[in-house]
């Protein structure tokens, strides 16, 4: 069984790093680097898991998450939020928006792996 992940992130190096880690773990990694049409990207791909950065060009990760949770098809989709702003307020906002998991950059590769696998219940 192949695990599909959509990484929504704008920093090329971070996309590369996450892509490398997850594909090594057997994920099929798709990436999207723009906030504006991120929701459509999720809907069209319907991945098993979304890794969502908070600060995206065009649109905030929180808004995207709120839209996803508002739509029936994506309401229960596991979403791992990543943020470079590690304040408590950011964590609270992420939880309020409906994030399944919240992680602060920089992260440990193994932690990310553990988290994503836990989220899809593998």
């Amino acid at each position, binding site marked *: 069984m192949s695990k599909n992940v959509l990484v929504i992130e704008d920093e090329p190096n971070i996309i590369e790093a996450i892509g490398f*880690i997850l594909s090594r773990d057997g994920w099929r990694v798709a990436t999207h680097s723009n906030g504006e049409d991120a929701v459509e990207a999720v809907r069209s791909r319907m991945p098993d898991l979304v890794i969502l950065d908070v600060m995206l060009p065009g649109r905030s990760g929180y808004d995207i998450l709120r839209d996803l949770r508002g739509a029936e098809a994506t309401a229960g989709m596991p979403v791992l939020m990543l943020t470079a702003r590690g304040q408590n307020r950011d964590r609270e906002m992420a939880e309020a928006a409906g994030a399944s998991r919240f992680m602060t950059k920089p992260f440990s*590769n193994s932690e990310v792996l553990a988290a994503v696998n836990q989220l899809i219940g593998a």
Partner: protein
Amino acid sequence: MASLNLLLSVSLAYVALLFLVAFAAERAALRGRVGWLRSPLVYTLSLSIYCTAWTFYGAVGYAARSGLEYLTIYLGPSLAMIGWLWAVRKMVRIGRSQKITSVADLISSRYGKSTRLAVFVTIMAVVGTTPYIALQLQSVTLSFAAFAAMDPATTLPGGSSTALWVAAGLAFFTVLFGTRNLDANERHHGVVMAIAVEAVVKLCALVAVGVFVIWGLGGGLSETLARIDASPIGRWEMVNGRWAGLIFLSAAAFLCLPRMFQVLVVENEDERHLQTATWAFPAYLMVMSLFVVPIAVMGLDLLPEGSNPDLFVLTLPLHDGRTGLAMLSFIGGFSSATSMVIVASIALSTMVSNHIVMPIWLRVTGGGAVVSGDVRHVVMLARRVSIVGVVLLGYIYYRVSGGGEALAAIGLISFSGVAQFLPALVGGIFWRGATRNGAMTGLIVGSAIWTWCLFLPGFGDGVVIPVHVLEAGPFGLGWLRPEALFGIEGIDPLVHGALWSLFFNTLSFVIVSLMGFPTPVERLQGAQFVNVYQYSESPGRGAAGPVQTEDLLMMSQRILGPAQAQALFLREARAQGLASYLPDPTPGFLQALERELAGSVGAATAHAMVGQLTGGAVVSVEDLMAVADETAQIMEYSSQLEAKSQELTRTARQLRAANDKLTQLSLQKDAFLSQISHELRTPMTSIRAFSEILRDTDGLGTEQRLKYASIIHDEAVRLTRLLDDLLDLSVLENGQISLNLQEGRLSALIDHAISATGGAADRLRIRRNRVAETLLLTTDLDRLGQVFINLIANAAKYCDAERPELSIHVRQRGGTLIVDFIDNGTGIETDQQAVIFEKFARVGEQKAGGAGLGLAICREIMQRLGGTIGYLPGQGGAAFRVTMPLARAMAAQ
């Protein structure tokens, strides 16, 4: 033969009677029984002080010398009373509403309370009146002497000693009844009553003598008329000019004489009395003048040649042995003399003490803040001293002049002296344009001419003015001859002097008034005087009573508040033993009320308010000025409060603004920290992720490992640069940077900047105009270079044209150096142009390497260098303009 002692006794008895009358009138007035004291009859009789001893004795003498001309002296006032009633009525109204105390007070009040005017008028009045008082003393002395001559049993006492005794007695009487109380209205009921009695006595005496002369001596009316026809006196020899002049002069004097002003205006109780006086006073004068001609004719006929015609009234009965009638005649003359002296000295003493003694005393004692009781005492003393002084002056004049011959001439000279007040007086109450300077000039000019033409020559030829001056003029200037000014001769000296003095007086008064502008006080006073009927209430206001107290209570409630005002009134009513809220308006209560009100509205305002309600007195300009002063103070105080409150509001607004700013700063700081966190964590994320990959992943290809290592390296460099920028910005923002001023050429600086951007600039074609760049600058070249590098690097990095170009334009405009950096890309969108200079602002897609601090740093640098950096829209591509004041650059050239 009548003994002198009998005459003395009768005189003393008469004087005692006068004392009694005056005393009774005072008592009656004190008890409030003023009904009959206030009758128009008493007022009319008091006006008869116009008829002095000069009229009583002198008119006969006048008739004996000059025929019917004596009539002019009676015609003048009669015409004045009838024809000038409008002027008289206005004077009376003004006198009441302005609390005028004398003619000097009226003139000075009208012209803005001018002290100099008051002093001048007072002095003129004293100068004009003193000979007149002397005249009265002389007439009493002469009549006394006439009696003594008939009584060989008695040795004649010295004339001067008689005059001295009379003077002393008059002074005593006047002091006693003239300064009894210091009434604000200056009314003297006792004196007025005594004068009224004297008026009746002198009329009766003259009528009695007249009747005796016609029917006793002349043998009946027709016989007497026949004698008159035979005599030169009876001939109707009118010298038109002199008659008109004399009538006008006596009419003017009637209004201006201090003693006439005193009875006419100051002692007036009720304006309506004037209506009675209008016909009664001329009637009185007519009766007084009726028997003058018969007495004169008979005197000339019967008495030995050389007899003094001024004493015919007395000597005719004496000659016929009618001692009783002679005594009555003496008492009549005595009455005329005394009443004149009494009233004149009261009037003069009021003027002297109010306008001369009191100002001097106040100045000497450093007045101003004097207790009122203290001043009362001083005023009283000043009055008494002034009365004694005025009578004494009259006596001294009598002694010095040696009781000269025809004193009647002095009377007319006095008339024309006081008539100098007329232009200022009449002009003042009818013409608003009249000014103080005009009045002063007119008075000075008029009295100077009067002194030269009438007063000094009046002492007799050669007494004061040498005879040759009289004949040829001073210093041989013929046109200045006292009796023929401007070489116009042939006019009667009296008419000549009066005419010229009044003419120039009026002329200069009008001209100077027209040339100048009245001061504010004058203007106000002028309005109050000229329009007195609009400003004052109708006469005859009701007496004090409960209605008035109710008004006071209503007013006090408004000012003090109902509870306090009622408590005050109730307390006073209880103290007075009354069982209501309304106490009687006693002076004490009014004073207390005024004090109470003064605490709230100021003393002047309180006084004006209480005065308005109780006295019916019109608020004077001084009151108004004081009220205005108070109001100004209160307004200033309230405006100070207002200013303070405005200041507080302003401070509050400033504090709010500061608070807003702090809140905003705190938000900005949060946002900034959050941004920094993001900017630091992002490269760190890559570094950590890839270093973990390198560490934990086996079997990575060389190429891959190399790639990941270089990512780590690049991100480490980016992190370092970010930290550098942050530090730089922090230093710049805190103003801690010290500028390192150097001199350098702009072209070299741009060269350096281009080469410093290194490889980035290779893909960019740069257009420059090197001629324009040959400019020496003195500034921090490193920092300016940093800005240029940033702009060039940005262009290299962000210009999206196929073949990127950057144009660098250098210009000078009005002392400012302008360097534009314009590329040929798509530029920056309008909505983002505003934010690009903010920290961490990045436009469009993120390209590796930029931390978003470059332009923020540029902006800080340019600010430190005294210049600006801004985005220049509408240039095709992205355009940045750097400006710097050239002053620094030029100075280096």
